[in-house]
């Protein structure tokens, strides 16, 4: 580009533009920054994902619904057995209709309310176990990974505990404590943290020798604070992802426990129980609804948590905030 051309280009411009502008040192420093809040940005990144947002709304509605469902008008009790007015006997295997939205089961209990009550139970289990796994798993995992002297002993303990068949513990537990919601939760908690601890440990080993941790050490920061302030925040995303999976995993595990006969008593509806009951009816066309409804709810919960966990894991990483 020639000078002449340039002149022409800027001819129309005001001459006094060619004066020095004021220079502000502080302004120069500020250039290019916006105000920023971590959680707000996390949230923004999260809700930018439409699917995740939809699922979040779905789950919120679902959870809210399971809570308020019993208080809605015209709701039936999940354990109440309905009687057929014609035969004066239980209203067995009544297909879905306007009265029983999801039909009734083999002893005449309303599946609609059973499914919600079951979802409530299962979510409660899932969330309780998930939270516990997070707490115990993270605490132990963090110590295991960060404190070098604890590495060997905890590794050995882990090896031992991990190899003791869970079934033995579960059987002993139900034997000692009677099957109930709390037994189930305790039983799952007793072993559930192992995987989490190991997971956290592996992550911590990766980041424990990063320079910023050495820096903290130089500043004399105690181990506890290094763990909570330097290490765990980096793991929030992955831990959230695992937590999110822990909930469906707990539900899935409940199905398995029910399958091998160590589940909740059938009188307490749970997704595990409902599915296990429904399983036997897979080939029975007219009764298949008894399997399909709980399976759909379970899949919905699992998929939602899985997807949300993934999206949240991305969103929790400040590097992904713009």
């Amino acid at each position, binding site marked *: 580009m020639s000078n002449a051309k340039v002149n022409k280009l800027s001819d129309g411009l005001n001459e006094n533009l060619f004066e020095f502008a004021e220079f502000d040192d502080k302004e120069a420093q500020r250039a290019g920054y916006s105000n920023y809040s*971590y959680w707000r940005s996390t949230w923004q990144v999260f809700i930018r994902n439409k699917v995740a947002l939809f699922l979040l709304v779905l789950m919120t509605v679902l959870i809210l619904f399971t809570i308020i469902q019993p208080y809605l008008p015209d709701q039936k009790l999940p354990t109440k057995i309905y009687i057929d007015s014609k035969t004066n006997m239980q209203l067995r295997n009544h297909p879905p209709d306007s009265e029983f939205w999801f039909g009734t089961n083999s002893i005449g209990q309303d599946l609609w309310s059973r499914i919600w009550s079951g979802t409530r139970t299962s979510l409660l289990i899932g969330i309780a176990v998930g939270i516990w796994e997070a707490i115990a798993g993270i605490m132990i995992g963090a110590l295991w990974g960060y404190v070098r002297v604890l590495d060997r002993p905890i590794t050995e303990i882990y090896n031992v505990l991990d190899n003791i068949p869970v079934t033995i513990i579960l059987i002993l537990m139900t034997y000692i404590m009677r099957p109930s919601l709390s037994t189930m939760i305790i039983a799952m908690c007793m072993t559930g943290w192992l995987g989490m601890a190991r997971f956290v440990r592996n992550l911590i080993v990766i980041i424990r020798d990063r320079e910023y941790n*050495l*820096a*903290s050490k*130089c500043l004399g920061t105690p181990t506890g604070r290094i763990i909570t*302030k330097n290490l765990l*925040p*980096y793991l929030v995303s992955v831990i959230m992802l695992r937590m999110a999976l822990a909930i469906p995993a707990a539900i899935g595990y409940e199905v398995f426990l029910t399958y091998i006969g160590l589940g909740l008593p059938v009188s307490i509806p749970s997704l595990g129980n409902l599915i296990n009951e429904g399983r036997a009816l897979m080939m029975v066309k007219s009764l298949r609804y008894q399997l399909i409804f709980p399976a759909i709810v379970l899949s919905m919960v699992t998929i939602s948590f899985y997807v949300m966990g993934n999206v949240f894991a991305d969103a929790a990483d400040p590097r992904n905030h713009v």
Partner: protein
Amino acid sequence: MHDGQREILLDVRNLRVEFGKSKKNRFAAVDNVSFHIYKGETFGLVGESGSGKTTIGRAIVRLNETTAGEVIFKGKKINGDIGKELDKEVTRKIQMIFQDPMASLNERAKVDYIVSEGLYNIKNYKSEEERKAKVEKALMDVGLLPEFLSRFPHEFSGGQRQRIGIARTLVMEPELIIADEPISALDVSIRAQVLNLLSELQKSKGLTYLFIAHDLSVVRFITDRLAVIHKGKIVELAETEKLFKNPLHPYTRSLLSAIPLPDPKREKEKVLEIYDPGCHDYKDDPPEWIQIEPEHFVLGNHKELEQYRARLCQR
């Protein structure tokens, strides 16, 4: 400057640091290193990558265990097992600035926490306000705005991050700062900011630096005395200008010859001196650490020392 009465802040004697657990893998990253740092000066440590610079720095702040030798700070031995009280004091008095501003800040903490971290540890504030005030002051000291406190490190440029790193050491009110290549990860324009800051702080707070680097033009600008380290051994130590004028050890000379010059004409004519460690014949005549002229030490055996002296005389 040549005053022998100057207060020695840190004295490193015959330091040896080994790595590797089993006998087979064991090797000394730092081998029989001695030097001392006067109060208020900037002491430089240069050498190629992997020569043990960082290891020495870390040994001083006790991140690395020492195998042998002593590190004496203000007359007290601070390596090996030391008491809680001393540990606390030393932690506070000796601070470190890290090489990589991208890696040495906790990305998940706000600047506020990063800078206050040391304060929380030593609890030398009485109220929350006082802590805030101290933190803000430290930030101002390094030329950052107090409003940055609520931000996260990834929002800052390399130079700003490095300044945050410096601010966090400043709140500890240290006497000795070990700056481990504080500028090698920064580009030219930012490099200057950080160097300025360091000198400024030295002046205003009377800090002492152990400045580790491999960029010799920077080292020349900032250090008062300089040690050249090669494969875990210090080969030469002198006042910076003296060393640049009269480099004796072949390694030092090769290092100096390699300095890139921002001058196309000269740079293109530059001749490299290549150092071949095989040039020493230490078999029958092991090298010694000798003061060859005042405040100028060099490692060499008798034959080499002879040569060095001859060279000095030539000048």
